[in-house]
């Protein structure tokens, strides 16, 4: 990796950016989400945060335009130079320009915006070009699969050399599991990983989920800080550690998707995170306290949550009670909490995980799962959790 002469860098933690001209190749929200995702590749590894502003002068001004575009470095039409950016500093420092004579996409067609934006933001943060062909900061463009894309090592080391590395945000520690038998060897760590990898439980009839949700058609089943992803496109089930996808989230107690908001919410102890369903990036301003939803401060964690598209309500399950939240009015409905058994007979008195899938609600209680058809207000089938994991 390389730095610019004099190693210019930002001297503050919160960097603002503003997109003043968009490309017609993508919707504005796609551009916003992709630019945010590109910045998040850096905020995941260095202690800087990035905030989009929509007026005034931001630290990093961003535009899409072909040919002459206001500086002394006109673009050259399709191909050739795709974009450029200035090193950190006042005024034009950090400003980033994309050649709108290119065809900007979110795929391998044309020019992938995430990859180029992430490269240019490397410059805007103080990285020069790298000679490592595998590095994002290598000068020439080469498409790579951007699913789950993270900064390559060379770039991560280069940007951490300037800003240090982001230490994981201390989250409220998960209540310690009841102490197990004393380890035979006192020097041996009784539990190297605070929560054991659930790989061996995938096909166990006793499998209990921590949380479950849909995300854009795929199903995510959370357990011990990992999740199984049941995809509509990929074959097989993948087991992924939560904090490799969202480094600031260690485990998930509850999760739900609100498709018409393109958002997924992941609950961790007494806080929750908003995530863009499309880009899978954390929405700025999160995490928030669960009390901001209207839950009482006596609630220290949410057991399960599910959004019901037909009523536009989100149900929050805590111990043997539940709340109803109106996603249209963004507030809790009156008259809650209510008893789970009173309104959802036969699903059990406590819900560990809940999700919606093609019109049915699935409530997990222990290893059992009730398939519930809301219009009839009754359980249609009883399944076992592991049945979703292609066993």
């Amino acid at each position: 990796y390389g730095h610019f002469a004099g190693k210019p860098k930002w001297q503050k933690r919160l960097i603002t950016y503003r997109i003043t001209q968009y490309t017609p190749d993508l919707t504005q929200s796609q551009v916003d989400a992709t630019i945010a995702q590109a910045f998040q590749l850096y905020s995941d590894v260095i202690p800087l945060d990035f905030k989009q502003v929509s007026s005034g002068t931001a630290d990093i001004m961003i535009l899409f335009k072909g040919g002459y575009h206001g500086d002394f470095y006109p673009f050259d039409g399709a191909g050739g130079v795709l974009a450029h950016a200035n090193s950190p500093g006042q005024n034009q420092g950090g400003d980033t320009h994309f050649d709108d004579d290119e065809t900007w996409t979110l795929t391998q067609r044309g020019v992938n915006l995430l990859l180029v934006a992430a490269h240019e933001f490397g410059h805007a943060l103080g990285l020069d070009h790298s000679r490592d062909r595998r590095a994002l900061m290598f000068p020439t463009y080469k498409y790579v699969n951007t699913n789950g894309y993270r900064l390559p090592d060379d770039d991560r080391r280069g940007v951490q050399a300037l800003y240090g590395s982001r230490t994981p945000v201390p989250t409220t520690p998960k209540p310690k599991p009841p102490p197990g038998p004393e380890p035979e060897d006192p020097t041996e760590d009784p539990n190297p990983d605070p929560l054991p990898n659930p790989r061996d439980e995938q096909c166990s009839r006793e499998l209990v989920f921590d949380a479950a949700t849909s995300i854009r058609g795929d199903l995510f089943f959370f357990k011990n800080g990992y999740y199984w992803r049941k995809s509509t496109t990929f074959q097989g089930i993948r087991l992924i550690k939560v904090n490799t996808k969202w480094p600031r989230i260690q485990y998930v107690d509850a999760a739900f998707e609100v498709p018409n908001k393109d958002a997924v919410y992941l609950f961790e102890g007494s806080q929750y995170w908003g995530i863009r369903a499309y880009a899978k990036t954390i929405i700025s301003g999160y995490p928030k306290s669960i009390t901001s939803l209207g839950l009482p401060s006596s609630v220290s964690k949410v057991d399960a949550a599910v959004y019901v598209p037909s009523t536009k309500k989100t149900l929050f399950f805590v111990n043997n009670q539940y709340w109803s939240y109106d996603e249209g009015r963004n507030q809790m409905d009156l008259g809650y909490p209510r008893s789970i058994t009173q309104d959802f007979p036969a699903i059990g008195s406590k819900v560990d995980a809940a999700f919606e899938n093609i019109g049915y609600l699935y409530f997990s209680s222990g290893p059992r799962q009730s398939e519930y058809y809301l219009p009839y207000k009754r359980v249609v089938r009883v399944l076992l959790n592991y049945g979703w994991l292609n066993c």
Partner: protein
Amino acid sequence: APTIAPTISPEEEDLAEGYLTQFYSDVGMKNSSTRTIKENTFSQDLQAMQAFFGLEVTGVLNNETVEVMKAPRCGVSDISR
């Protein structure tokens, strides 16, 4: 003996000059229309570019080097300023 057709066309030589001016000249990102570069600078800059991309450093323009110059890329210079 038939004269061997030059492997590098005049257009590609122009492309190379513009490329080196923009990404390997000694100051910042240069606007190629405002600068012509002398032969020795051309060879030196070409060697710097070939070294950066891990090509054989000959200081002479060849097809492999031209291919790299044609690849879509970032507009920021490759030499630290």
